[in-house]
């Protein structure tokens, strides 16, 4: 059990770099992450560290991992709903399965788990249900699947741990708790519920109607070594900005950056225009950044994993009072706080804020109709 490690890291603390350096090029490693973008990032970093991608190291998306390693090789003995031994032709990426409910009402097109069509569309797996399909296998089959995994692989890396939710999280937990498994999972707890696509937060980050705390999250990995110290300092975010985050958002983050850093709230019209029109400053909107022509722009959620020299954040109403003495986020949920945390922690040097109401005065000028 003690072979696995969970590492909780701060934003910009060099998770990718750390994984690349942690890899032993002699052993057999699988590096798994959520997005293709991140697969590319990891590959680049590993190549930087080791000269080339080591012969026995593969970097792949979570979907590819589940499909290639946990499902495909076993198809002749898998049970898929009410069928067995279906030979599929891949993963469906363009179509989502019918949900159980639509607008709160039961969906008659929904297929239950005892129907193979719950998992498959024309001989292809719905990517959102592959984890649940692995978990639905019998104990014996799961044993075979896991045995094979660790027969070919010494060390499993999971990047962006906080993105594992629902059945994906359950599957990850199953692997971490495996006796012979050597899993290394790293993520930033405070970046959970910040996604590039729209979704409503779910397990394990909620408990009933409430979000869980970091300590409660840690309890989910009971029995596994949890490292909170190694990647506690942000290499990216300057000290002053880290302090600002800690005070205002209540998220503890330290800095190891040598840059002094600068942040300010812009309220004067001339200053606002100057910054917005500066092409060296990336403008971070809560949403719909593509509707503005003051390039470069990006949504808060989409900026995850990115690093920028200078940024300007357009504050939503929720955070209008951020700079006031008595600002507190006690009444806010992580689903509201975390996206701003992500947005703020992108910067290495200069950070500007503009309140939405101040930006509105200029909106017409920059909006694409």
């Amino acid at each position, binding site marked *: 059990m003690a072979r696995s490690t969970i590492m909780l890291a701060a934003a910009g603390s060099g998770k990718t770099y750390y994984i690349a350096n942690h890899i032993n090029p002699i052993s057999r490693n699988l590096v798994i992450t959520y997005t293709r973008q991140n697969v590319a990032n990891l590959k680049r970093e590993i190549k930087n560290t080791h000269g080339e991608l080591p012969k026995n190291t593969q970097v792949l998306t979570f979907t590819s991992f589940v499909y290639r390693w946990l499902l495909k090789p076993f198809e*002749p003995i898998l049970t898929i709903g009410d069928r067995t031994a279906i030979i599929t032709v891949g993963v469906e990426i363009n179509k989502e399965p019918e949900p159980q409910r639509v607008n709160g009402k039961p969906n008659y097109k929904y297929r239950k788990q005892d129907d193979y069509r719950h998992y498959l569309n024309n001989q292809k797996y719905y990517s959102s249900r592959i984890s649940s399909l692995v978990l639905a296998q019998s104990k014996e089959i799961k044993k075979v699947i896991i045995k094979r995994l660790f027969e070919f692989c010494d060390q499993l890396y999971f990047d962006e741990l906080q993105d594992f939710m629902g059945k994906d999280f359950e599957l990850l937990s199953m692997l971490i708790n495996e006796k012979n498994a050597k899993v290394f999972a790293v993520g930033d707890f405070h970046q959970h519920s910040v996604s590039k696509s729209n979704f409503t937060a779910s397990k394990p980050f909620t408990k009933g109607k409430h979000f869980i705390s970091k300590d409660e999250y840690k309890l989910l990995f009971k029995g596994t070594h949890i490292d909170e110290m190694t990647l506690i300092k942000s290499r990216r975010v300057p000290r002053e900005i880290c302090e600002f985050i800690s005070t205002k958002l209540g998220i503890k983050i330290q800095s190891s950056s040598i840059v002094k850093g600068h942040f300010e709230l812009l309220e004067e019209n001339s200053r606002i225009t100057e910054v917005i029109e500066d092409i060296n400053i990336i403008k971070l909107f809560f949403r719909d950044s593509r509707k503005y022509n003051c390039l470069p722009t990006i949504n808060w959620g989409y900026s995850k994993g990115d690093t920028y020299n200078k940024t300007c954040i357009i504050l939503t109403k929720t955070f209008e009072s951020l700079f006031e003495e008595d600002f507190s986020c006690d009444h806010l949920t992580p689903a509201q706080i975390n996206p701003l945390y992500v947005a703020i922690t992108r910067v290495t040097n200069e950070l500007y804020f503009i309140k939405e109401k101040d930006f509105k005065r200029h909106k017409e000028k920059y909006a694409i109709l």
Partner: protein
Amino acid sequence: MYIEQLKIKGFKKFKDFTISFNKHINVLIGENEAGKSTILEAIDIALNQKIFNSTNNSEKYFNNDIVHQYKTNPSIDTLPRIEIELLFNDENELNSEYFNGLHSSFTPILKNGITFTYKFDESYRELLESMYDGGYDESFVPTDYYIAEWVTFAGRKYINKKSPLKNVLIDNSIRKNNLFDSYSKRIFNNNIKVRDRQHLSYQFRKNIQNFITENNEQLNIKEYNFGIDEDKTVLENLLDLKSDGVSIQNKGKGKENLIKTEIALEVECDLILLEEPENHLSYINTRKLIKDIQTMCGNAQMIITTHNPLIVSRLDLRNTIWISKGTCHSLEKVQEDAADYFMKTDNMQLLNFILAQKVILVEGNSEFILLPQLVKNSLSYTLEGKNIEILSGGGITYKHYIELSKVVNNSLLVITDNDGDQDTVDSIGQLNKKYTNIQVKCSDSVIEFTFEVCLFNKNASELNTISDIKPGTKAEYREVATDKNLAYMLKNKTEAALRISEEDNYKEIVLLPEYIQEGIEWLVLQ
């Protein structure tokens, strides 16, 4: 990685065939048309995606029996198909995972391998059914609606770029002049690093371009100008392997073979497929070749087809796999000292021995010369007519042949002498009770210590003047008084045998001694 097993279904000779391989050297033997080359071809298809990657007439590759079955009962469900399964050894490198899974005939055991199938493409089922209104009754195979698929045991699509075995196939049995699959090209691709190949290819194309640019004027006709056909100027397709400035194709077949094989052995390969390497080679060159194979193949797996007994014996009899009637038999269980014996003595009859179903092994030249004729005289049939092979073992070696027969399971009759020793007679009696496929025959009487004595006793009156040709013959043998004619036969064994087999007064009259006749009658019944 190496090939552990090959399964062929419905391909050419093989309706349902399985063969296992050693990690190192494998020598395939068998009669012509037994399917030795088909085995190499099947490996080439599964591993290198040969033949079926282009659409041509593939009907000839189906197994005749299966096509016949289909034609007597034509339906979409009985359409012939080809399946080739290549099993690798268990290996757990991360990248071997691509080959590991349950998509194989070995389910539920996880194995590494590739499956090739050539079958009716189910997506055309509706089309075909509607074409025939459900009453499908074709008597030919609609290969136009067939699909060739390569899938790893992990269920993933296999492409030969991901081949786990760097391999080379050397076919010395025929001259292959296929421009796009030439031998030189394979050697080039296997032997020169990707980066160097890219560089060479780039330089080559650049120089061709320079040539065009420099000669632009001459290459112009009115408003047209000549360029170079890019499809024809791919460097690797133009390469020709040379030795001392002479293309190896022009060095004589024997030399060509030797060079081809030697180069293949030098290339770092995981798998070497050698088709009849002995072709066009003299005895000495064959021996040289064998030595090269032994010393140069390193850790590569080799699969060799051959008709040459030297290759079989010198590469260790136990590496031999005998292909016959759509099945295969490994000789790995032959005892070590027997294998050693054959390895040390260049036994030219070894292959005949293995391939024959019924064999008579005789002690010396006299029996070898006389037996065919005497059988005809005594039994009114011929050994040839009964498909019996007669081999001369020479002395005590029949024990090694018995070891071999135990494994090969052919019917073996050994004709031997009792050397006047009762113990020999007794022990032979014991031996004959042990095996159903092996009989050793000698005279039961110790007085008849050797073949000539038995022959003379059986035919005393017919042979009573045979010594006349040598009037000086003394009526004694090894200082024991002996009939003059018998003494002549004992002292001039080969001469006497030749005379009996040729001269009219003996040729069709002399009969088989009893023990030999008994033996042959047993053998014929097997």
